[in-house]
């Protein structure tokens, strides 16, 4: 029962959602509307679960004084202060939450990704070697895009942006479309396996 009921729900909901797509009847549209509304509510609860998980993990780390536990205090402080401010004063422009967002969250988030530029430059220098024919091709295509897509490329030659556009529109498009076919077929196959109960990893525990 512990497995059959969830599998049956998954199967019925999955089949209903496929069928409603092909049958533009009022009943199928109403079912669709209802499912879409319900899903948003159910998803919100799953998100709450995620918040609980990160909060408890931080508390646990501090309690047990695990490695780097001290920093978890900052996570908790950030979480509590921001939520209290957000829940108490609202989320509009001009509220304290927006001040925190603009001056703490934005700089931290934006900088975290920006330092990747340094590591990418360093890694490209160290590892990007034209050892084989394939690697050389990759390198040439990368150089064409890197030059052709910035104003410097136009300054070097007016043909470079055209060449970059050709690389992107013809060989790149062909490769990406072929990958897209593979990914799409894979997604459809996995979705079917979930609906039909062949893929049961999400049930957790031992497979029967």
């Amino acid at each position: 029962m512990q497995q059959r009921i969830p599998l049956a729900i998954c199967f019925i909901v999955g089949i209903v959602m496929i069928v409603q797509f092909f049958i533009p009847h009022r009943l199928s549209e109403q079912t669709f509307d209802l499912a879409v509304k319900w899903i948003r509510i159910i998803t919100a609860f799953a998100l709450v679960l995620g918040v609980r998980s990160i909060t408890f993990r931080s508390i646990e780390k501090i309690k047990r004084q695990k490695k780097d536990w001290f920093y978890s205090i900052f996570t908790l402080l950030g979480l509590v202060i921001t939520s209290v401010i957000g829940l108490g004063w609202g989320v509009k422009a001009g509220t304290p939450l927006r001040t925190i967002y603009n001056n703490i969250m934005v700089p931290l988030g934006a900088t975290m990704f920006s330092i990747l530029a340094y590591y990418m430059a360093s890694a490209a220098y160290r590892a990007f070697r034209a050892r084989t024919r394939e690697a050389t091709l990759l390198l040439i295509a990368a150089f064409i895009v890197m030059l052709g897509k910035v104003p410097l490329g136009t300054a070097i030659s007016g043909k470079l942006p055209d060449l970059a556009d050709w690389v992107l529109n013809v060989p790149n498009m062909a490769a990406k479309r072929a990958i897209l076919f593979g990914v799409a077929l894979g997604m459809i196959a996995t979705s079917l396996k979930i609906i039909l109960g062949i893929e049961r990893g999400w049930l957790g525990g031992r497979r029967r």
Partner: protein
Amino acid sequence: MKIADLLGKIDRRIIFIVLTVVIVIPLISPIGFVGRLSPRVHDLFKAIDELKPSNKPLLISVDFDPQSMPELYPMLVSILRHSFARNVRVIVMGLWVTGVGLGEEALTTVGQEYQKEYGKDYVFLGWKPGVSAVVLGMGRSIKETFSTDYYGKPIDSFPMMAGVNNYRDIPLLVTLSAGDPGFNTVWLPYAQARFGVRVGTGVTAVSAADAYPYLQTGQLVGLIDGMKGASEYELLVEKAGYSEAFKPASQAMDSQSLAHLAIMILIVLGNVGYFLARRKK
């Protein structure tokens, strides 16, 4: 031997310094490289330019967060300037919860710049959980999906939302997308393919190459690719006389060019060092 060693083992701190220098110097003292307009950026500009004030509103989805702000935020600001200058009404929403603040910031700033009135000229719907359920739900009814705006007011109460029921009433949707959920994982399969809404996109350069199959089929009406695309859009808006405001993406283009050149030179040096060392062996 020594040259091979030297070229093959440049300290990473030197690489960090070189990259910083080639970015900072052109920001302080601009070179003034002139780039060429990409047809894909122009296509999106044209699609927005063809919208009339009498049309139903343009829908913009802010599907990014602060982590990709330098690339996508200038696009958002330029598109808003373009729309407001042409008196095109705008609905803004987002699928990324941590990007909501950026959407509101841009909308209120540019709205004030063009003296636009909230509810009459623009509306901010904010964010709802559920991703595909939100996008699919809007195809049936925007009012059912976003019963209230970001500020908690019923969206029925806004004059510009009268007659805007679902995607049939949206002449163009622009998603500024930094990944998943984004243009290819959500908007194209659930909004474009299912409800036939016209979709244009602005993306981080990382995912720009993946957009080309959709451009070829016409599923995407246009593409702004990364900060370079944003700078082109800024210039288009300025050239058309819609805005004279500061252009952050355009300011960055000299640095962008030199940084690319520096990275290419580093890759070449690394290869020269490698092949010299290999020949020696």
